[in-house]
């Protein structure tokens, strides 16, 4: 039985009580959530504002141009004497570039991710990961110039029929641009699979490659797919590279060697030109912007569906 209190040099309970009564802690406790709420509200309101502007200007556009013509038309000629607003050539331009980029970036990005997470030593990983993150931060205008002045001339040596402006070169470069995103995020997903999975599989006589491809990759599938979807929406929204190296000829065909125009490149073309306020051309950039927004929204929905459908179970 302890009947007498121990002799103490420090009374921790007393100190805690003193601290609690000091006013600042109390006030901060109430003030901080309010500040956080205001910050959150401002950013939500801004977003809502942007979306509404987009919607109103788009509605104005569709007062002038038939919605049906817009989504099924195969000719985009806003500057012609008799203008025609069929979005499909622009969508196709975007899809060509995005498709090429994904074909380049997914296999390479996954290879890098698997190498880093399953095979590389700690030392190698510590060197390469930051490099990837720096690569992801290179301004896209640099990539654009690189595509136009280096990659296109080089490709022309291999394919002499390649035009100066084409889908291939910016597609490849966008692939290079989104590769670090896929590699880095997929690496995070792969290396967060618990080591117990690796041990279990190695213990059954698997090789490291079998462990990586048959256990770790499927276990990290949701993270890996999410990285691909994120990279895809970056490719769709990419502007500088396609403006510089893709051209400004919206054509409805499946040729990747000729000049194209993407949705983003069209918006740049009009915004930097002198289309007057209130003209149909002016409203068209909102319609195109809204279309782009729909595409990105779909990407986000796919991403959240993926993370629900392929939730990690371990």
């Amino acid at each position, binding site marked *: 039985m302890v009947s007498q209190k121990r002799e103490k040099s420090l009374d921790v309970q007393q100190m805690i009580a003193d601290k609690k009564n000091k006013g600042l802690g109390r006030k901060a406790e109430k003030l901080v959530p309010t500040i956080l709420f205001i910050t959150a509200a401002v950013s939500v309101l801004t977003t809502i504002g942007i979306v509404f502007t987009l919607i109103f200007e788009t509605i104005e556009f569709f007062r002038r141009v038939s919605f049906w013509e817009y989504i099924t038309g195969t000719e985009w000629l806003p500057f012609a004497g008799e203008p025609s607003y069929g979005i499909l050539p622009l969508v196709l331009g975007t899809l060509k570039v995005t498709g090429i980029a994904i074909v380049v970036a997914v296999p390479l990005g996954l290879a890098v991710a698997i190498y880093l997470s399953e095979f590389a030593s700690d030392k190698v990983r510590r060197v390469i990961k930051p490099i990837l993150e720096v690569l992801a931060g290179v301004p896209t205008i640099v990539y654009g110039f690189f595509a136009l002045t280096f990659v296109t001339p080089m490709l022309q040596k291999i394919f002499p029929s390649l035009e100066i402006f084409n889908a291939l070169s910016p597609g490849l470069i966008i692939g290079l641009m989104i590769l670090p995103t896929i590699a880095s995020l997929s690496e995070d997903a792969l290396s967060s699979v618990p080591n117990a999975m690796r041990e279990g599989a190695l213990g059954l*006589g698997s090789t490291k490659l079998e462990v990586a491809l048959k256990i770790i990759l*499927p276990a990290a599938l949701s993270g890996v797919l999410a990285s691909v979807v994120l990279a895809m929406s970056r490719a769709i929204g990419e502007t500088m590279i396609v403006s510089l190296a893709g051209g400004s000829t919206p054509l409805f065909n499946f040729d990747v060697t000729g000049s194209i125009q993407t949705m983003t490149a069209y918006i740049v073309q009009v915004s930097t030109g002198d289309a007057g306020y209130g003209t149909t051309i002016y409203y068209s950039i909102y319609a195109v912007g809204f279309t782009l927004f729909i595409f990105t929204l779909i990407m986000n929905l796919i991403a959240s569906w993926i993370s629900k459908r392929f939730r990690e179970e371990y």
Partner: protein
Amino acid sequence: MVQAIVREEQQTKQEMKVLQNQPRENVYETNNLNLWYGDKHALKDINLNIQENNVTAIIGPSGCGKSTYLKTLNRMVELVPSVRTTGEINYRQRNILDKGYSVEELRTKVGMVFQKPNPFPKSIYDNIAYGPRIHGIKNKKVLDQIVEQSLRGAAIWDEVKDRLHDNAYGLSGGQQQRICIARCLAIEPDVILMDEPTSALDPISTLKVEELVQELKENYSIIIVTHNMQQAARISDKTAFFLNGEVIEFDATDKIFSNPSDKRTEDYVSGRFG
């Protein structure tokens, strides 16, 4: 399948030996094994012979090197980059520490069950079929048969037979551990290493796993690390007592628990330290 035939041969040999009252063969002969994690000398001059179709228990206080020794037996310990070993471990007369020895081949013969159940995030069926599949068995009928046989072998068939295609993570911890044992049985190994396989389980699941170990020793050689003294006494034929990286005593389980020759063993098994 080939392994099954080989095992049958081994079994008949075994039966003959029992009839002729010959000693069982050693699966493992460890000679002067030393192991370091960097500068830390974790195993010191280990000499141990482990007999086939026996349950060998490894006991000792925390940090004495039980897991390290077990993981050396299938070379899993090499996953730690700083590990260095000297000496030899002969598995069926071949030194597994030789550079040329294929770890994949070794681990196909020597299965392992871990402390925390670690099924793959796949269906129960795919968990069991994983091992046979990576070793080239693709035929659906054969796989079905292997899956059923392994789940029966691990005494969990009745509990999961209606949900083979559900994710293994929907099972209880005890069931997951038996899935892991079944996964190991599916490639019909020669030896099964178990590192505290019941320490994360409730008493009833523990009992089930213990009964299972008793059944499995007919066909497999089992080496089990445990902190549970009663468990070692109940299920093992031989017991090795480890202390600070050394083997203090290795003998028949009865002898270790009733009449140990070393004072330190006696202190440990009677609960006076550790």
